[in-house]
């Protein structure tokens, strides 16, 4: 028990992990407060501000800025006095630390490397995250909830963003930071990081398991049946499913009508990509399924999903 606590403390108190622990607490605290305010606003309503509600920047805003500056300086000073920034041995290209981890805000991406090929986890998904974030104001058709906390007026937007931020971003960072030890194996936070641990990785070829169709032929070319089945699944998820929803609900749903096909398409594809990540994670962690679709064009472009 004391060993477990010791290991737990070791990883929590690693200087570079302190901001993550702090952010974890802050994010949970902030979300709780935001939802509390949203509930209150939803119940009581929000009063539109009038010109008379305006106050002067000096002293009301300047005062707050001054106070916040002082508080931040105090917090940072205490932090900088009590915890030293890490400085390890001099860089040594011949000695790879195990595990070698990227800085904490990239650990979500590094964790995704477990589930996807590097160019998908490290290039394609981050690009989609950034593009998706930029598109947010242009694909959100809802004019309500501008300038106050609310949940009732925009349940879909709030839940999607909260899940995307808390589960797909914060949780992946926590997973990558606290639960990935040597060899990027899974360790509970209270487990000792045994560098000699060997886990037999028995990743399953999905289509071979189900239909007895291997992903690749003996000569290394793609098995066309697998390409068709996997492709149908992926394309079905990202293209046919949104089209089907559009066809079925465009007349009935006022939201869809208001959005139009283009906005709806972009929203649906981004949402389904986001939802695909935990599905793939689950398939890998629970059933060791390596890929759903193994496909490539030429020697460079691979869609191993």
């Amino acid at each position, binding site marked *: 028990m004391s060993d477990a606590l010791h290991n737990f403390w070791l990883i929590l108190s690693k200087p*570079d992990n302190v*901001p993550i622990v*702090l*952010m974890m607490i*802050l*994010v949970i605290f*902030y979300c709780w407060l*935001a939802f509390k*305010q949203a509930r209150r606003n939803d119940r009581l309503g929000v009063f539109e*501000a009038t010109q008379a*509600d*305006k*106050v*002067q*920047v*000096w002293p009301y805003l*300047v005062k*707050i800025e001054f106070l*916040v*500056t002082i508080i*931040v*300086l105090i917090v*940072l000073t205490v*932090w*900088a*006095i009590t*915890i*030293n*920034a*890490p*400085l390890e*041995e*001099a*860089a*040594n290209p011949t000695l790879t*630390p195990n595990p070698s*981890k*990227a*800085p904490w*805000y*990239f650990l979500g*991406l590094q964790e995704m490397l477990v589930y996807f090929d590097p*160019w998908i*986890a490290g290039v394609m998904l981050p690009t989609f995250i*950034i593009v998706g*974030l*930029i598109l*947010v*104001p242009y694909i*959100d058709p809802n*004019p309500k909830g*501008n*300038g*106050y*906390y609310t949940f009732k007026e925009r349940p879909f937007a709030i839940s999607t*963003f909260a899940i995307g*931020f808390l589960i797909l971003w914060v949780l992946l960072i926590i997973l990558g930071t606290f639960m990935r030890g040597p060899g990027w194996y899974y360790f509970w936070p209270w487990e000792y990081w045994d560098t000699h641990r060997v886990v037999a990785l028995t990743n399953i070829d999905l289509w071979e398991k189900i239909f007895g169709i291997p992903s690749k032929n003996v000569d290394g070319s793609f098995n066309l049946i697998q390409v068709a089945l996997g492709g149908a699944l992926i394309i079905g998820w990202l293209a046919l499913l949104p089209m089907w929803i559009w066809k079925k609900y465009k007349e009935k749903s006022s939201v869809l009508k208001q959005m139009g096909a283009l906005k709806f398409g972009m929203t649906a594809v981004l949402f389904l990509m986001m939802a695909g990540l935990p599905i793939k994670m689950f398939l890998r962690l629970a059933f060791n399924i390596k890929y759903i679709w193994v496909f490539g064009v030429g020697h*460079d*472009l*691979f869609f191993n999903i």
Partner: protein
Amino acid sequence: MEKNKTLGRLFTSRVWRSVFRHGLPISNRARAESVFYNFFLHVHPVKVRKRSLKITYTWALGGLTAGLFIILTLTGALLMLYYRPSVSEAYADMKDLQFVVSSGLFLRNMHRWSAHAMVAVAFLHMLRVFYTGSYKPPKEFNWVVGVILLVLTILLSYTGYLLPWDQLAFWGISVGTNMARAVPFGIGDKMSYLLLGGNIVGENALVRFYVLHCFILPIATMVLMGVHFWRVRKDGGV
């Protein structure tokens, strides 16, 4: 009383009035002028909605991000005095900062933790803006600027991560740039070659990351911060 008289004479003196053209901010007019005529305060409007000042509404997260950027610029400039971006000197300079330079350890700690805090606070700011729907018209484009600023913040932190040239730095950057290398059609290799100035994380990479970290990225961030604040103000915020 005597003291107030002296102060009163100071505040009405010609020298004082040449610096601050308005009177003491005791009347509404003088308060407005203190904001209007002050270079630093003129990023703010003269009056703001009471609601946008509620601390439980914004949590001052945007201002905090900007404040941390200022702290980082100041501590960073001081660190530059002691740090040379070369493979043979960088690590030794870090050790000097730890053990030789007066308050060097404190300076580096301050820079490191402010950097982590800035990334975290920028993320929280984005979460807040989303929750309150503050990206909605007319502020759509300012959200885009904000996303770019978030990316720049991460890049600033990431390029700074290499500079100590210790194991953490070297392998952290190697893991990251190896991911970039995975872009197909050889574009990834070209990109990583451009970023590192070679095929491995070495002397050229250190210089490139240094220049990005200390010059190119901060300038880009400052310009976009200006745009971001200006648009906030024009759209009726603080």
